[in-house]
């Protein structure tokens, strides 16, 4: 059954979750106290706010990832038809990879791919 199945699956997932959560909501009697809602931090009141501007040491990886991700999507059509097309495709992809490899090496040389 075609794309409709996606709808079915989504509905199924959501229904499942909703039922489960509702059930527990109905069944459980919860006690309340004022510490309950506070963030857990090893039993110590947390210091400073969590949603501060926070430095993700590895965002550079995400940047490079994005580039390679795009490259990946171009590889799929290539991979499907490479057998049909033959050596031309091979050559093209070698060029393609070669160029990207330069990028990877460059990143490596500049130390973008390592921490400290």
């Amino acid at each position, binding site marked *: 059954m075609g794309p409709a199945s996606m709808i079915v699956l989504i509905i199924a997932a959501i229904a499942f979750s909703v039922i489960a959560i509702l059930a527990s909501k109905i069944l459980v009697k919860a006690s309340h106290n004022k510490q309950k809602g506070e963030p857990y931090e090893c039993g110590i009141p947390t210091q400073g706010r969590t949603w501060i501007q926070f430095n993700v040491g590895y965002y550079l990886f995400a940047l490079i990832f*994005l580039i390679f991700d*795009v490259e990946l999507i171009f590889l799929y059509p290539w991979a499907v038809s490479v057998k049909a097309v033959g050596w031309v495709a091979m050559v093209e992809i070698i060029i393609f990879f070669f160029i990207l490899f330069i990028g990877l090496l460059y990143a490596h040389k500049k130390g973008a791919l390592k921490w400290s």
Partner: protein
Amino acid sequence: MMEPGLYHILFLSTALFFTGVYGFFSRRNLITILMSIELMLNSVCLNFIAFNKYVWPGKLDGVFMTLFIIAIAAAEAALAIAIIINLYRSHQTIDVSSGEEMKY
């Protein structure tokens, strides 16, 4: 309600595009502006696909356009974010209004 076709999609994409424009105008935060731009690009892609399906199914140019747009959009996003973060490091803010005085 009639079967949705080219026109519906075009309307939708237009709406999407102008939502992006609205964000572009009304936001001052570079990242949100970037998001708006992404929205616009997407609406364009949608158009391409729609035309390709309903007007020129004989060719795949629409598809390729979309592909390349997406690729360029990704590259552009990556660069933009790199720049944004660099700006932030130098100015401690990414608000356009305060970013205006910096001349490259």
